[in-house]
């Protein structure tokens, strides 16, 4: 096992899969970087460092720098996939779903169904998401709830380098469109990554902590925050199950329900805004399917119903935190 960052795990997985399968192609804005300049292609090698080195190895037919045209990027990915390729498209910021939603929602996600199951559309879209870098209202959003709501899309949020490799490999071996969310504040997280072929199946949550008193269900960057909250609670002898969903579509409903059936108390931590959110989705699941096990009101910890503000202090206050998760856990435990 090598120790590497999430960034490098993603980069290496793309390299490996492109070597393995000549149908894998990559496209996006500045994923090569330097095209049409004195510095030449690969002068930059990808804004996020996730696509560095691909162009040199695989050339312009498979590593395609595009103009600033997100609808055309996602649409081209859809067309590549219908035509038998396995595109990986990068949305430099997940917020650019705004300018490309149709191709994700009404095209890519629906082809298989509309066409009567007679085709596949194995496109992977990498979306760089999340708050915490003062990137303000249009470059900080967590768009996974919107993508989770769309039938036909699978939604993946790795939180460790190993999962980044395992889930991305799985995405590229499967035949459905996959929204692969990478948190911009998590690229630098380091961890062990299995060598060789490594796949993590979709729909299997990871138990990040086992505790038994409270279930904390979460995903993405909030997993780390939940673990911190759990560590603090552990000092008071309170044991938390911290469930890292890994994929929100398909979602490991059994893992959630099993945990809640054991604990009777649930806190859902979600980086996004509250309305029609992943938090509410899980709350609905639990309130309809684990009702009799529940011992306390469901606690949802989310951002407020407001855009992401710019100023550091405001952004920090907007974000859920280990402290707000911990407080919710204590509330649910105090309920009798």
């Amino acid at each position, binding site marked *: 096992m090598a120790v590497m960052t999430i960034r490098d795990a993603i980069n290496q997985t793309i390299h490996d899969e492109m070597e393995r399968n000549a149908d894998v*192609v990559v*496209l996006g804005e500045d994923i090569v970087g330097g095209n049409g300049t004195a510095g030449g292609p690969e002068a930059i090698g990808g804004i996020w460092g996730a696509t560095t080195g691909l162009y040199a190895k695989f050339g312009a*037919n*498979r590593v*395609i720098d*595009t*103009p600033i*045209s997100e*609808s*055309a*990027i*996602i*649409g*081209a*990915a*859809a*067309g*590549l*996939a*219908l*035509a*038998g*390729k396995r*595109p990986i498209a990068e949305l430099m910021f997940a917020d650019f779903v705004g300018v490309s939603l*149709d*191709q994700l929602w*009404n*095209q890519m996600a629906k*082809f*298989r*169904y*509309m*066409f*009567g*199951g*007679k*085709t*596949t559309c194995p496109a992977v879209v990498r979306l760089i998401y999340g708050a915490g870098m003062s990137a303000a209202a249009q470059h900080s959003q967590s768009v996974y709830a919107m993508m989770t709501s769309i*039938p*036909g899309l*699978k939604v993946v949020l790795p939180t460790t380098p190993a999962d980044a490799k395992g889930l991305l490999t799985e995405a590229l071996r*499967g*035949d*459905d469109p996959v929204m692969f969310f990478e948190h911009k504040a998590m690229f630098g997280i380091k961890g062990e990554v299995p060598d060789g072929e490594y796949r993590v199946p979709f729909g299997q949550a990871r138990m990040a902590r086992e505790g038994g008193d409270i279930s904390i269900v979460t995903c993405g960057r909030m997993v780390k925050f939940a673990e911190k909250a759990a560590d603090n609670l552990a000092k008071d002898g309170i044991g938390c199950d911290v469930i890292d969903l890994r994929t929100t579509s*398909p979602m490991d409903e059994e893992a959630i329900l099993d945990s809640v059936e054991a604990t009777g108390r649930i806190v859902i931590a979600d980086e996004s805004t509250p309305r029609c959110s992943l938090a509410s989705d899980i709350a609905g699941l639990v309130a309809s399917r684990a009702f009799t096990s529940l011992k306390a009101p469901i606690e949802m910890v989310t951002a407020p119903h407001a855009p992401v503000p710019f100023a550091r202090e405001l952004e920090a206050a907007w974000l859920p935190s280990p402290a707000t998760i911990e407080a919710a856990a204590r509330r649910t435990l105090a309920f009798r």
Partner: protein
Amino acid sequence: MQLSRDQLLRAYRQMVVIRMFEERLHAEIMTGEIAGFTHLYCGQEAAAVGVCEHLGHDDFIVSTHRGHGHCIAKGCDVKGMMKEIYGRADGLCKGKAGSMHIADVSVGMLGANGIVGAGAPQAVGAALAAKLDGKGKVAIGFSGDGACNQGTTFEAMNMAVVTKAPCIFVFENNHYSEHTGFEYAVGTNRDIASRAEAFGMKVWRANGSDFFDTYETMADLLAYVRAGNGPAAIELDTERFYGHFEGDPQRYRGPGEVERLRKDRDCLVAFRQKVEASGVLEIAALDAIDAEVAILIDEAVAEARAAPAPALSEVTTDVYVSY
């Protein structure tokens, strides 16, 4: 360019299939048996056929809401299409698509599309796949004069130029987007083709109501694109004989407009006149085709009517490949 007798007969037949398919749908829709929105291709047959007669199943096309003509011209099964439009279990897409979403990827028909302008970027993607394969295959994106105002269409043209994709933008200008005239809605300094040209690609223009003009112009264009010169565009001047969709009161038409178009701009009439005048085909051969196709369409409707509805369990299948 000289087409063989077989090629001519085939092209004529394709146009007739489209025409009779659509005329029959127009009649059948009145019965209330067919649900949803249907946009008929009548009048534009020479465009679809003049383009698609050049293509193999490994070339790709991406279509529009007005897709029946493109589907038939590209080789979709006519009976399967009819069943699809009737919403039947053994329709080409199991009754899940209906008129607006018919596709058959196995013949290179990547889908009709209910979202105006959505197809153009997909054609670029298919063209990039063809480019990667390096076998001289192309992808065609059909767009209307209305679709040519959608942002996706412009993005696609630019991206095709930048990536040198073997993508062909076919603009069927039938002078209307829904109930609005081309003159009102499309800002240009000349025409749709000149807009495409400004993106740096080579463009052609042809009479989309004339099979021979469309076919021959496309031959030039395809030679250019298949040779690896990057994308191209063609504007086809054509006409639709029916309303925007079935049910359209068409009050925006001028007096006698449809009658005039049916007289002066009917591609089937023009085809017959031309081959008769040049003596390459005898009218009897064309009449035989008409008769044969009429039977095909009769059968298609009869079989569609008799076909079973989809099982209700189908509602939740085919969303994913693996669940």
